[in-house]
């Protein structure tokens, strides 16, 4: 058995003059949940497409389940499952027909197709709607059936591109629970997301991808420990957040400032934040502070520190919803 489910070395992909991936290198261990975290356009989908054989890299080496690309792509494809960022099953077919068709694509005999499809419909709580057309499913149901279809041939690796984007909170939670259970069954999971909380909850390791480059890969636990070594303070102001941000930036250049709305600011640091001089500086500038709340640093703060990208901006750019 391979220690690594996938190995990527110096992966580069150019589309004309645009460099989508620039020397990306990482490995994913067998049985792990690996998260690829980054804003829109960072190269997450391009990485997945290269790993599943839908994009030819400009340069670099890829090996999935011990199969070298591009020579052994069909062998690898027989043992991987893919959930794209959009549910892409056939709207005219029912849930059951879609799963039967997906099974047939992998050459399963008719009897096995039915039993496998029915057991997945049961597992994903879709048995009651198995005869309903896929086009008539809700977004959450569509997402679940798309994941079920990717699992029909019992893949060893499951690739998920933004699995919970655009669906309701309940369905997102259910999908996360299912992914956890699948991983417990031994499926290696490669997940791209722009939801930091999702990566924090699910992933064993996380890579931060920005502008086609990996800026950090680490264990989620280590990243969280690092986050907890830092501190953040959220300030509720009288409406002069811009001015306050300017004052803090000038007087305390080691602090990282993150804007909320025009009345709130969050300042973070890798160590302790001394509140007294901070509040005094704002008070002397005539800015009234209604509240100063110390908050536990999260993976989001680590992400902001590492990438310089506001997580809020990333969610907005991706059109994210409440998770």
């Amino acid at each position, binding site marked *: 058995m391979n220690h690594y489910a996938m190995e990527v070395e110096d992966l580069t992909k150019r589309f004309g003059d645009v460099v989508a991936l620039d020397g990306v290198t990482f490995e994913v261990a067998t049985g792990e949940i690996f998260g690829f975290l980054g804003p829109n356009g960072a190269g997450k989908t391009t990485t997945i497409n290269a790993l599943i054989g839908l994009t030819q890299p400009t340069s670099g080496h890829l090996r999935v389940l011990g199969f070298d690309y591009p020579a052994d792509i069909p062998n690898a*494809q*027989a043992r991987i499952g893919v959930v794209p960022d959009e549910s892409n099953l056939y709207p*005219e077919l029912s849930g059951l027909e879609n799963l039967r068709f997906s099974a*047939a*694509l992998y050459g399963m005999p008719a009897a096995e197709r039915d039993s496998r499809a029915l057991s997945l419909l049961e597992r994903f709580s879709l048995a009651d709607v198995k005869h309903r057309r896929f086009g008539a499913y809700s977004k959450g149901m569509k997402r679940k059936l798309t994941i079920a279809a990717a699992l029909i041939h019992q893949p060893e690796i499951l690739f998920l591109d933004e699995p919970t984007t655009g669906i309701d909170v309940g369905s997102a939670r259910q999908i996360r629970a299912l992914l956890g259970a699948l991983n417990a069954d031994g499926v290696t999971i490669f997940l791209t997301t722009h939801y930091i909380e999702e990566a924090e909850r699910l992933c064993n390791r996380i890579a931060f991808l920005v502008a086609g480059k990996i800026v950090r890969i680490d264990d989620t636990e280590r990243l969280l420990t690092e986050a907890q070594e830092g501190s953040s303070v959220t300030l509720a102001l009288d409406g002069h957040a811009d001015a306050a941000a300017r004052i803090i930036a000038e007087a305390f250049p080691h602090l990282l400032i993150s804007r909320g709305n025009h009345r709130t600011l969050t300042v973070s640091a890798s160590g302790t934040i001394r509140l007294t001089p901070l509040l005094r500086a704002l008070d002397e500038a005539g800015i009234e502070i209604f509240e100063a709340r110390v908050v536990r640093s999260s993976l989001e703060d680590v992400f902001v520190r590492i990438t310089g990208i506001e997580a809020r901006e990333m969610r907005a750019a991706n059109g994210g919803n409440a998770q």
Partner: protein
Amino acid sequence: MKTAIAFWAILKKDMQNYYLKPPNISWGIVFPISWTLMFILRARGEPVSVADVLPGVMTMSVLFGTTSMLAVTVTFERRSRAFERLLLAPIGLNTLMLAKTAGGVLFGFANCLVPIILGAYWIDLASVHWGMAIPAIALIAVTSTFLGLCIAVSVKEVFEAQTFSNFFRFPMVFLCGLFLPLGDIPALLRPLSYALPVTYGNDLLRHAVLGDGVIPPWISWILLPAFTLALFAFSTYNARRNWIS
């Protein structure tokens, strides 16, 4: 065996899902039926007979049926990204393309039955050389399907595929000897006629139905499979370039 299961699943799904899609009905079924009726009704009087126009309408029915089908089966699925599922299946691009085109070939063949059935009402088809006509229809269906595939892999939208198809289909109606004898086509355009596969298929049908084809049949039997291979190779090359870039 696994490949055969996947092949049949794709073919069956395409037949169930797409044969009655609106663009297929309008361009692939209604249009050839209308032309067939128009020509046959017109041909009941002098100077042309139903038999004279039958090979042309048969060819046209196959051409429009197959190209419309491919424009739908490939382009619809590319648009909805369902096609990615097929590209990810462990069946190889060539098998996938053959499975997608098989539905088009059968659709074209079935479409060709419309003018034959309608024609049988007015003329006696007992003299038709079916041993030549049936393989000729099959070859026209295959080459036209691959022509449709070439178009389908080059565009993104269904309407683009239909429009682009018309860019080829309508000139072919006039250039390939369907209703205008090859000898009557202006000399300047005649090389173009001989560069189109439909010309050879239609001429074989004229041999089979009327016995008045102008190209020796052996040339057509050689050239039609050659066109088929060339169009398939071009389509798969284009598909690999456009879809797995």
